[in-house]
């Protein structure tokens, strides 16, 4: 294929959208954290889908009309930082092809990629190598070099794709966090999916554009750009809008707005600028930009209120942070109170029913800060407080509370929810703090903990070869069982945990686990282990299908 006509380009873009949509979960899983909570793939896919909706509206087969629609649609629909950067990529791509009407040559394509890459670098205040910026640049460089020797658009695109692949593989060399986590950069992988789609769409069959609605992930998922003082958000208004004008200067807008907030992104050209900023003064921001041109698509959200509503509905914080669960016992003053850290609503109810005075939502991937714990401890109406961290990553912050809090605070170093429940069973309101700590600590290991989640990427653990999406069962923090179905892994994990001394098996199922399946498993286990009592409760924790205790 020597040139790319408008019709071919349209098909290439639709292919890119289909592939990104198909791969978005895999891109999401490329998280530096070993658990599934990423959203980069979803955000990029949503952005591209929005752009393709504009592309589909274009009846003309002129290349520059199609790319203009792509650029405008992606700018309008950009979600998350990765989506905004992608929109800039398309903006530059469109610029590079702005004079091309009938068909793009290999040289045109290479120039468009170069422009696209340059635009992404300009959009980001501090470019970081090893990200999608690098992937785009490497692709453009290879495309330009190839175009010098070969005019074929297909050959140029293939060279760009190959270079993008290599750049993605190389991304851990630039970013140590990726290397440690054994993953490649998610945004880079997303961009590679787009290159792959362009390549396959070029000579492939007409793409079936998969425009099924994508569930919007909470954005932004990272703590970056979010500041809290005493738990209250600073710069709480997420403000987004477009400025439409004739001779806009994105750099000038960026410099002026910088002092008004954080997590700022200002991208665009002289005709359209998209502004995203977290600010406490949305009025000032709008006032200034309104003086430069027409404002459009204005969206202002109060993140504090959104966060509260989101936390209520989802068990975890809008930003991946942990907030204090609003539930609290309202009893009279006690000698000793108990604060428990729990990863789900059902577990919060269980801990409260067992006598905890306050629960803080948190756990794997959402560790509460020392400040969150301190607030919970201070809110308990008691002379002394015992903290049950219930996760090994929370023990450290819990211990810090001991030094920060004026009242006596004790920490029972419970490393799992089952350990916390067992420790709480030995809490004796009449006994002293020291006696309680001793008894709770002594008994917390009487229980075995099992957890079932899924692998977000392939890895090897001991003798076990684990593929992505495999269901994995952990006992006391180590991967013990790998399988394809949750029920199968649950059975085998419990087999490994139960012995002749076991008398109680408890399962706490997560927010993604159907209650009917849990009930089914309950029945099977009751029949399989007649010498044990089997209990199943809704735990409501994210990501973990089951938390299991055997005692």
């Amino acid at each position, binding site marked *: 294929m020597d040139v790319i006509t408008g019709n071919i380009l349209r098909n290439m873009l639709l292919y890119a959208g289909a592939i990104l949509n198909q791969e978005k979960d895999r891109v999401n899983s490329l998280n530096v954290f070993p658990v599934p909570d990423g959203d980069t793939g979803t955000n990029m896919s949503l952005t591209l889908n929005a752009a393709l909706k504009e592309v589909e509206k274009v009846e003309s087969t002129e290349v520059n009309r199609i790319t203009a629609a792509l650029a405008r649609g992606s700018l309008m629909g950009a979600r998350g930082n990765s989506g905004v950067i992608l929109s800039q990529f398309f903006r530059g791509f469109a610029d590079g092809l702005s004079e091309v009407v009938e068909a793009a040559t290999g040289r045109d394509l290479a120039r468009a990629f170069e422009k696209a890459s340059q635009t992404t670098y300009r959009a980001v205040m501090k470019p970081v190598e090893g990200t999608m910026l690098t992937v785009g640049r490497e692709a453009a460089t290879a495309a330009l070099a190839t175009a010098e020797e070969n005019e074929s658009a297909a050959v140029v695109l293939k060279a760009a794709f190959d270079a993008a692949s290599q750049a993605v593989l190389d991304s851990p060399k630039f970013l140590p966090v990726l290397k440690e986590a054994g993953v490649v950069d998610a945004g880079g992988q997303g961009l590679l999916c787009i290159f792959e789609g362009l390549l396959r769409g070029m000579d492939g069959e007409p793409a079936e554009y998969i425009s099924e609605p994508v569930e919007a992930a909470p954005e932004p998922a990272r703590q970056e750009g979010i500041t809290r003082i005493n738990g209250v958000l600073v710069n709480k208004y997420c403000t987004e809008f477009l400025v439409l004008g004739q001779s806009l200067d994105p750099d000038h807008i960026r410099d002026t707005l910088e002092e008004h907030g954080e997590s700022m992104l200002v991208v665009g050209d002289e005709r359209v600028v998209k502004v995203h900023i977290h600010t406490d003064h949305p009025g000032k921001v709008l006032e200034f930009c309104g003086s430069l041109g027409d404002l459009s698509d204005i969206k202002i959200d109060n993140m504090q209120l959104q966060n509260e509503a989101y936390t209520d509905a989802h068990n975890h914080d809008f930003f991946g942070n942990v907030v204090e669960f609003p539930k609290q016992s309202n009893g009279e003053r006690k000698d000793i109170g108990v604060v428990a850290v729990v990863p789900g609503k059902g577990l919060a*109810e*269980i801990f409260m*029913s*067992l*006598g905890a005075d306050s629960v803080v939502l948190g756990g794997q991937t959402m560790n509460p800060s020392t400040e969150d714990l301190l607030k919970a401890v201070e809110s308990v109406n008691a002379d002394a407080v015992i903290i049950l961290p219930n996760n090994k990553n929370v023990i450290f912050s819990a211990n810090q509370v001991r030094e920060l809090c004026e009242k006596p605070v004790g920490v029972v170093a419970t490393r799992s929810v089952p350990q916390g*429940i*067992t420790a709480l*069973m*030995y809490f004796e*309101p009449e006994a002293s703090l020291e006696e309680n700590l001793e008894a709770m600590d002594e008994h917390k290991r009487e229980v075995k903990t099992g957890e079932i989640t899924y692998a977000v990427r392939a890895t090897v653990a001991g003798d076990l070869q684990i593929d992505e999406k495999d269901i994995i069962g952990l006992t006391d923090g180590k991967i013990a069982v790998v399988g394809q179905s949750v029920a199968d892994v649950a059975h085998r994990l419990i087999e490994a945990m139960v012995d002749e001394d076991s*008398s*109680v098996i*408890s399962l706490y199922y997560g927010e993604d686990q159907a209650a009917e399946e849990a009930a089914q498993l309950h029945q099977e286990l009751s029949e399989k282990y007649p*010498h*044990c*009592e089997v*209990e199943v*409760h809704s735990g409501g924790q994210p990501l973990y299908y089951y938390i299991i205790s055997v*005692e």
Partner: protein
Amino acid sequence: MARIHVVTDSGSDLPQEVRDQLGIHVVPLSIQFGDDIYRDGVDLSVSDFYARLEGDIMPSTCQPSPADFEQKYLEVAEPGDTVISVHMSSRLSGTYQSAVIASNMVAEEGIKVVTVDTKSASIGIGLVAVVAAQGVRAGLSLEEILERVNYAVSEMHVFFVVDTLEYLRRNGRIGNAQALLGTLLNIKPILTLQDGVVSPLEKARGKGKALKRIHELVGQVRAKYPNKDLAVGLTHAMAPAEAQSLAEAFERDLELKDSVITGLIGPTIGVHVGKGTLAVLLHPKY
């Protein structure tokens, strides 16, 4: 020659053969299912009782009247005799109160009644009655017998586990275990009697663990009295297999001279604790 007799109430859960062997007399409490009134152990068997307990009508107990006690005292004692009347915790039942009133009534007949508030229930009452009856058989004086009786009362250890706190709650006998209500998990509370009132001691996940823990707690009592023999009573509400394995474990581990007295929790106590309850009561011998 003046004699000493031992009377108790139907809350003592003593097996028939023990009562017969030691000559212990029992005054029954009444059990009411709606309009139907039965006397415990007289016209209501244990198995019939638990079958009816599963039904819709929630039964209640009624203490013996002073006249019931008066009648029993007059039946067993001659003028000049003494009756040791051993009863359920006065904070759980009015039975002791009725006995006290009756004791004044028969004093005019020349019968001396010494009432004992065991601050206990079930076989805890029974074990105290056994101490009294054994003292009588050994030919001890009233003072010597009462000293042994008071020692058993003050050193009695009580551990029991219920399948559900519901019966204690419905009958208003839940005492300090109130705090354990409403737990979402299958928690088996290990309960005790403190100053004659139900109190929570510990919590366990599941009955198996609770029984294991009771075994440990009893072992701690054993260690507390290294130079003494222990008297152990064990009662259950339709849980014979669990009771038997626990009794065997005690006889194996506790170096007992006498075997464990195992009894059924009769209707008087069963109304308040429900099916599945197991109770272990023990005291060091004087």
